């Protein structure tokens, strides 16, 4: 299995879909539960697709997310940078973990991302978030296996079509 399969088109489409889902309107009560779609897609492409492995890509993606969601410019960028670094650091090990352990790693990464955000939000002088804010990594991890299977399927299809 080569590292660089799955076309650039598929990569762009999944990232665009992740951005759209990050902006999707949700009822007020469900809003804090919104999974961190962009991070999930980034983790998938890094681990399985062998793409988005440079810190520059994480940084750029984070800046884009900051621009569309109107957060402090650099907030998501910092979050994704740290996530990307940790992922790259332990990539060789994470890739061969059994699925449930991999999900654990994803949860830890996303929780860490939340802590980074909390730190920035705290420095910017905003209030302590509601406790439901911490549920987002949980929701993300619940969705992770399905997203994994979906993207794997899409990638296989794209490969078969090009072959």
């Amino acid at each position, binding site marked *: 299995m080569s590292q660089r399969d799955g076309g650039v088109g598929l990569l762009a489409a999944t990232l665009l879909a992740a951005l759209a889902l990050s*902006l999707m309107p949700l009822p007020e009560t469900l809003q804090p539960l919104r999974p961190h779609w962009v991070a999930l897609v980034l983790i998938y492409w890094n681990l399985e697709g062998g793409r988005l492995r440079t810190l520059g890509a994480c940084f750029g993606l984070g800046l884009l997310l900051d621009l569309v969601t109107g957060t402090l410019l650099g907030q998501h960028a910092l979050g994704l*940078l740290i996530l990307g670094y940790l992922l790259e650091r332990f990539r060789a090990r994470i890739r061969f973990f059994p699925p449930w352990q991999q999900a654990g790693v994803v949860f830890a990464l996303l929780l860490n991302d939340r802590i980074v955000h909390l730190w920035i939000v705290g420095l910017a002088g905003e209030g302590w978030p509601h406790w439901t804010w911490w549920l987002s990594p949980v929701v993300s991890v619940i969705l992770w296996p399905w997203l994994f299977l979906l993207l794997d399927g899409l990638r296989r299809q794209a490969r078969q079509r090009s072959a």
Partner: protein
Amino acid sequence: MNAPGGAFHFGAELAGQTSRLMLYVLLAIILMTLDHRAGWVDRLHRQAGLLVEPALLLIETPFRFAESAWSGLRSRQQLLNESAELSRRMAEASARLLLLEDLRRENIELRGLLGASQQAELAFHPAEIRQVDLNPFSHRVVINRGRRDGLRSGQPVIDAFGVVGQVDEVQLHSARVVLLTDPDHALPVVIERTGVRTIAYGSGLNTELRLTDLPMNVDLERGDRVVTSGLGGGFPAGLPVGEVADITRPTGEAFARARLQPLGRLDRSRHLLVLETVEPAAPEPVVGEADPVETIDEEELP
């Protein structure tokens, strides 16, 4: 499995990776600081907004279609009920408006007699919140009116219940509205019952505003209504802002604090109004109306 050369120079690659991380982290921190302190990044942000705007519109489209499909599916009975309810409310509101119109005319005449400055006329731009959710910490919403509709930065935004915020960044077809609850937002207000003027600060929580510089002996009670004072010129006077939820007088501190429950439905309104102050036309008509009164007086005197 690793990147080319990764297995051989693992230590060197790790060091390079770490130093690159530090570089990017530094860059991110610098960006955030500049953005927070609103320097040149502000301009950059606005220009990037031009690029982001079409993307937002694109993302919104499927959700708007879904909503219109959903409204097409609603039952006839439901719509009839809603229509009846709305026409009842409409009748009520227009009756109230008639009374108000009378009062307004009277007020203009009285002001004319007093020689007081004219109150600015208000124009309303109805706007709808776009079907996109921004980050919950940004305390901003995107509305579907922009520069093309004559919006300018700083215009007040209200809903049917009270003040919601003010226009921040304006793009061609959309604009961002800062909500009252943004921690950077401050609004000059007056307590309706006592006339005490103060400033309401955003708290970062979307159900709360703060009054932090009240004198210790201030006359304030739970449930007091707080309205805009019109000082500062940005907002017209008298728009409802919030109700006092509680007041604390911490011992050893110089000021009393109060928390306000905003009256505008910051988190639920879909339909908003952007206010535009129109400079009053030349005050002749009022003077003209006032003059006859004086002449009649003079005629009656002899």
